């Protein structure tokens, strides 16, 4: 059914020309993510009556203004003599696609699945000659009966989910008020401060080994089709989960609780023997490394959590395992990894999302403050880290509206279809009564989002 029809595809240029001869080099963490790409969809209701195309025009003008501050987006990929990717800021612009969809945005959100949602983003695989390939794609879909969806696709080489969200927020600020509240900063990852080295410091070997293995592994096999569902856990339920995993509530975070919960359930669903299934967690290291909120680039680090010997229902042990790894991923550890990556100067491309179950912590991502028009917070924000070829993905995201300090969370789960069915029927999950925001198409969502 052609619900979404394409209006046009164009290139949006920044309003101020870029000074020629500028380059933005990519960091060691950036270059690892070459095989991956992101899709993010923001949904908004209409606040005022507008002619069709009017809001899209306003957004287009704002994005042109915004791009003046992001020369890295309007630039193109270019290989340095050493064989590394860098961005040549040649002012080529960003692709923008405009589309129209039937119905209203609220109705769309009730009957959603992965395929339908991906109609709201536009993506083109990297060209053989990437010098003419836009690294970012924006798709703006106006719903005929009200509402708008903004889809952003970009290569993971340049940005991770928090960074892409920062971009949308900058766009929203520009549309609403004409200026950006957090202007972007382009600088390399911080190095180790010279005077600060602890001479007894042991390099974080486990982290380095994990990356070494990932780089050296062969390409994963793409077999089963994966589906995505989104569950919402409210504040009370998350607190209950935390209490389950630890008597003293304050020592556990919602991420640890939910990650442990899903680790245990997914292992059960997959039928893993001798412990919990292989899982890696992916954490945002911006705070740990002391980076400014406007930092543009990749700053999420993966690490394996050890599930050997943990039995089916031992949530506490699972949570402890996760907490231990989170604790060890401190500034020094990350610096070790970065230095090792720089020294090694590898040319092979890892599939960072391609093997284990990945659990990504996107709690701190500030998606719901991207407000384009007065009093219109996003109805929902969906994230996809592609390609989905590994064992599965769990993304833990902040709740839609309301206060920031609540413990409620939205979880996006991507697994093979039969495993998803079993997961939804699992007793442990049912115990925390999640709301299904996006289920399998056979099931109707019981309550609205």
């Amino acid at each position: 059914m052609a619900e979404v029809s394409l209006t046009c595809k164009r290139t949006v240029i920044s309003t101020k020309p870029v000074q020629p001869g500028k380059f933005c080099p990519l960091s060691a963490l950036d270059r690892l993510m070459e095989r991956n790409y992101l899709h993010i969809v923001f949904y908004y209701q209409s606040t005022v009556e507008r002619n069709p195309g009017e809001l899209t025009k306003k957004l287009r003008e704002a994005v042109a203004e915004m791009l003046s501050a992001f020369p890295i987006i309007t630039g193109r990929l270019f290989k340095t003599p050493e064989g590394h990717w860098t961005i040549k800021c040649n002012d080529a612009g960003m692709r923008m696609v405009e589309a129209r969809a039937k119905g209203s945005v609220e109705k769309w959100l009730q009957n959603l699945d992965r395929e339908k949602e991906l109609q709201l983003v536009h993506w083109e695989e990297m060209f053989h000659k990437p010098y003419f390939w836009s690294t970012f794609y924006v798709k703006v879909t106006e719903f005929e009966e009200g509402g708008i969806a903004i889809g952003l696709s970009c290569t993971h080489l340049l940005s991770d989910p928090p960074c892409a969200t920062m971009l949308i927020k900058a766009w929203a600020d520009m549309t609403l008020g004409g200026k950006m509240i957090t202007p972007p900063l382009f600088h390399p990852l911080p190095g180790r401060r010279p005077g600060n080295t602890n001479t007894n410091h042991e390099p974080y070997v486990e982290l380095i080994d994990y990356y070494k293995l990932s780089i050296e592994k062969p390409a994963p096999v793409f077999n089963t089709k994966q589906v995505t569902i989104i569950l919402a856990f409210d504040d009370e339920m998350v607190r209950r989960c935390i209490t389950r995993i630890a008597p003293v509530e304050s020592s556990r975070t919602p991420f640890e609780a939910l990650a442990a919960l899903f680790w245990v359930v997914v292992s059960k669903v997959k039928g893993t023997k001798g412990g919990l299934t292989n899982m890696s967690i992916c954490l945002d290291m911006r705070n740990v490394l002391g980076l400014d909120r406007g930092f543009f680039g990749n700053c999420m680090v993966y690490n394996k959590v050890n599930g050997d010997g943990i039995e089916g229902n031992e949530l506490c042990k699972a949570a402890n395992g996760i907490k231990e790894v989170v604790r060890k991923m401190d500034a020094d550890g990350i610096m070790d990894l970065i230095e090792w990556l720089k020294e090694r100067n590898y040319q092979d491309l890892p599939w960072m999302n391609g093997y284990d179950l990945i659990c990504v912590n996107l709690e701190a991502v500030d998606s719901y403050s991207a407000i384009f028009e007065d009093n219109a917070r996003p109805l929902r924000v969906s994230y996809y880290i592609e390609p989905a070829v590994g064992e599965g993905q769990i993304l833990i995201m902040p709740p839609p509206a309301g206060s920031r300090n609540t413990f409620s969370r939205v979880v996006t789960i991507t697994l093979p279809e039969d495993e998803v069915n079993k997961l939804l029927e699992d007793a442990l999950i049912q115990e925390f009564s999640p709301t299904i925001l996006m289920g399998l198409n056979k099931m109707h969502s019981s309550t609205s989002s």
Partner: protein
Amino acid sequence: MPQILPNFSSSVKLKYVKLGYQYLVNHILTFFLIPVMVGILVEILRLGPEEMLNIWRSLHFDLVQILCSSFLIIFIATVYFMSKPRSIYLVDYACYKAPPTCRVPFSTFMEHSRLILKDNPKSVDFQMRILERSGLGEETCLPPAIHYIPPTPTMEAARGEAEEVIFSAIDSLMKKTRIKPKDIDILIVNCSLFSPTPSLSAMVVNKYKLRSNIKSYNLSGMGCSAGLISIDLARDLLQVHPNSYALVVSTEIITPNYYQGSERAMLLPNCLFRMGGAAILLSNKRRDRSRAKYRLVHVVRTHKGADDKAYKCVYEQEDPQGKVGINLSKDLMVIAGEALKSNITTIGPLVLPASEQLLFLFTLIGRKIFNPKWKPYIPDFKQAFEHFCIHAGGRAVIDELQKNLQLSAEHVEASRMTLHRFGNTSSSSLWYELGYIEAKGRMKKGDRIWQIAFGSGFKCNSAVWKCNRTIGTPTDGPWQDCIDRYPVHIPEIVKL
């Protein structure tokens, strides 16, 4: 060192000789009159007042003679004033400034070219070479329909562009001149390649609710020199209709004419033509004498269409795939040079000072009678004009004219900077150049300006204006936000 000094001193001596000669010839009448007046004055002083009265009485004036003489004088004066052509004033003009969202940097242009012409890499390379040497900057604008992948040049989009450009320019002009739409008596719109029905002039009449007895004209197909043709038409109409305002709109609509094929000779206009437009208000009302910016002195039109090669050198046709585009022939510059020579021969006697004309005459006689090998004397037009507005058709055109007319870099600065900032906006480029000179504060009262435009056909048209009042730095206009960055050095080749 020694070999430079003699040249320098000899050239300085030559310069003074030249200056002396020019001063003598150009003010020859003064030089004759002064001795005569001094002679009469000395004679009067010598004769004394009584002698003067005696001479006066001896003339025997009677009433009839006095009356007849005075009637004769009044009659001659009346005939003179009635048959004098009306002065045409340019009250003000406004140029269209495209929004920065329509900007087309080189890299975007090349990227689109690669995506659309993916089967023709040679054509893409050709476009890149043209763009590198074009003299355009990174801020020229194309209409929204051309930003699409692939471009969608529909009629609706073309009308949209026409409305945007023309109405913006006219709104800006009306604000500057405080004129009401009902005051406009004559309307001339020129747009070479887009000619819908109803015409663009009808579109303007409809939008601004102009009077039903307006004299409106729509010129199409006349190329980049149509702007000056419109001015010429307006001038002739203003001779016939007293006490009138004429609104002239010069533009070129890019949307429907973007060549979508891959023939190299036809891809050239894609690289150079950009969005632009201008609206000009002309008047023959006496009260505008004080507020007008310029007065029109001459318009000279030269048409070389009788020659087949000149006629075909800018030719719209279909390529082997059936796509329509404008074919520019390889001898365009030669033909342009000849058309210019023709135009100069006509305009020279009208504007050049007597000194230059005499020199030209002597060299001409000398070449015919004495020795054909003498170099033809190129008159120094820098003495006739303070400012030059050469149509920014392309870098080659400006270079060629600079060489032929022996102009300095400052004289062609307006043309080069307009090409850099706005691209080739066809008939309106002359007005952007004039705007540049005003924005730089170089326009003083009494300055003479020469506007030269070339166009398909092949035509070379010139207009000569005289500045009516010193123009202060404008607070609006297309150059307002970027004039401080200009002039910029434009490299021979921009590496893409």
